[in-house]
């Protein structure tokens, strides 16, 4: 197996360089989005949609909230052994 591995061809994300490049592109995109907001015309339904970077903050916070609630509240309640129903 280890011999196979050595001979195996390298794939895209096996190079840390490629991973870094993708990450850098994403970071640039995030910054562009933050800046772009100030150059667009908003037609908000709600006042908070006009707050600067509302969507960015909401997305970030909501994601962290989902993960934390699922991990620390839901999982302890509903998790059972894999053969629970057998």
């Amino acid at each position, binding site marked *: 197996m280890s011999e196979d591995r050595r001979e195996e061809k390298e*794939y895209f*994300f096996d190079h840390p360089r490629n991973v870094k490049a993708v990450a850098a592109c994403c970071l640039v995109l995030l910054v562009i989005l933050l800046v772009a907001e100030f150059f667009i*015309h908003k037609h908000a*339904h709600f006042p908070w949609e006009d707050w600067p970077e509302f969507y960015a903050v909401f997305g*970030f916070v909501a994601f962290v909230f989902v*993960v934390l609630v699922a*991990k620390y509240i*839901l999982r302890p309640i509903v*998790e059972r052994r894999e053969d629970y129903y057998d």
Partner: protein
Amino acid sequence: MISTVPPAAVLIAGGLLVPLIKGKWKSAFMLLVPVIGFINLIHIPEGAHFVFTVFGQDIIFARVDKMSLLFGYVYHIIAFTSMLYALHVRDDLQHVTGLVYAGSALGVVFAGDLLSLFLFWEMLTICSVLLIWSRRRTQSIRAGYRYLLVHAVGGLVLLAGIVIHLKQTGSIAFGHLGLNGTASLLIFLGFGINSAWPIFHAWLPDAYPEATPTGTVFLSVYTTKTAVYTLARGFAGTEILIWIGAIMTVFPVFFAVIENNLRRVLSYSLINQVGYMVCGIGVGTQMAINGAVSHVFAHCIYKALLFMSMGAVLHRTGKINCTALGGLYRTMPFTATCCIIAAASISGFPLLSGFVTKSMTITAVGNHHMVVVWFLLMFASVGVLEHAGIKVPYFAFFGHDSGMRPKEAPLNMRFAMGIAAFLCIAIGLYPYPLYDLLPYPVVDFAPYTGAHVVGMAQLLLFAAAAFVLLMLAGVYPPEKRCVNLDVDWFYRMGGRLFYYIADKVFNGINGVSDRLIARGLPKVLGQLSRRLPEILTLGTLLPLWTAAGTKGEALQRKIVKTRAALETGTAPVGISAAVATIFLVLLFLMM
């Protein structure tokens, strides 16, 4: 003018013919059936056709209008791509049920009356159970039975509603019903069970992951979306649907985060997506209905594509759990790309199909200034990104390297995924042909405004950034081999409790009966029949002997002798006759 048949007929008849065709023509035939169905459909003019009058009621097999046509189109597209996807499968049962299932869904969508709707509704249930059972594993058989039980109940609730409705109104025509009394409530609930409302939803994540890799693609489309259609037709603007839908979008998100089986993750995501549609139907404005049904169109395609990509992984590796997968992009790049396109579509990234449809529903909610619902839907959008947008592609194709180097998906699967992926992009880039198909004209809504695009992109990309940070910080919950309880616990364990109680009560009665009657009574009777002559004889003779003065040793000897004589059946005739006479005399005197 081509002469046409009811839309459901082509797929059902075609499906039933599949086993009769052998050899290389079989595949061609299977692909041809949905194509012929589509050609048939576009030649039926709008209006009510194929009307049969039975007992004074009109049975309408083709009520063709913009709403039913939109569902009809996408159902044919999915039937074709799913058939292509399943072409390598050598199991006629799956092909037949797949096509008949799609045909039944068309039957419901084009039904203009509640009776034919109900018949096709039940056919949907039967076909989906067969698709689940086709995997032929113990878990699948059990999950299929549970699915059948839930949908049998749902079907009966619907039937009860239809019967009461017929009794009250004297008509079985299916139009807008609205919530107004027992009949409509029962019909509402019947539709709700099939559209996986909260509490009634557990059949979906329970059963869909247990079906075959190809069967789940069919399942992911027809049952729930057909229920959405019936809600849109019968209950548009029913306010409670807004809340049911909003809750549906939110709660599966949490379950999906901690779920290990990726097809179960997609099942929860399915409930979440149907939530947007149900919510839009509840709002009931023209824009909201447009949003809901356009979302059906886009959703059918990207959800099928997600299940296709996971089906390909399951087909090639035999595994579907996050804990067992990872790093498959190396040898399955095409499947991985398609999965990412579907994942980005469902998340609502600009330029893809989810963006141009989901935002219509959210805008409709915004137009009505429903603050809480709006926040729930936005929150759920982040949730979709979490489980369907990131988790599914990441844990299957990237993440830790599982060491598996499976072959790329079979050619037919790749073609099917390619078609679906193309449609996701095409609808996203140029949604106007889809908008033209919607029931109402699309006015006052443009998907690609700067605010929409930047807002949605910010929301999604910063949520994705949160994922990266949580992963790097080690906070993201590790994948675990486990089951997570859901509402199905109540009927799975309830079933066991019922079994336990039935076991104790009925087997208890059985045990007591066995002890007392089966084993106790014969023993008593046997002894009695053996001892009865002796008791009667000695009982009669003893007073006589004592009266005759026999005592002590002599009396004992007489008793022993008589007992022995009775046991061996050698009693002198005289004694028997005397005893019988005395017995008769006593009997006579007592009377």
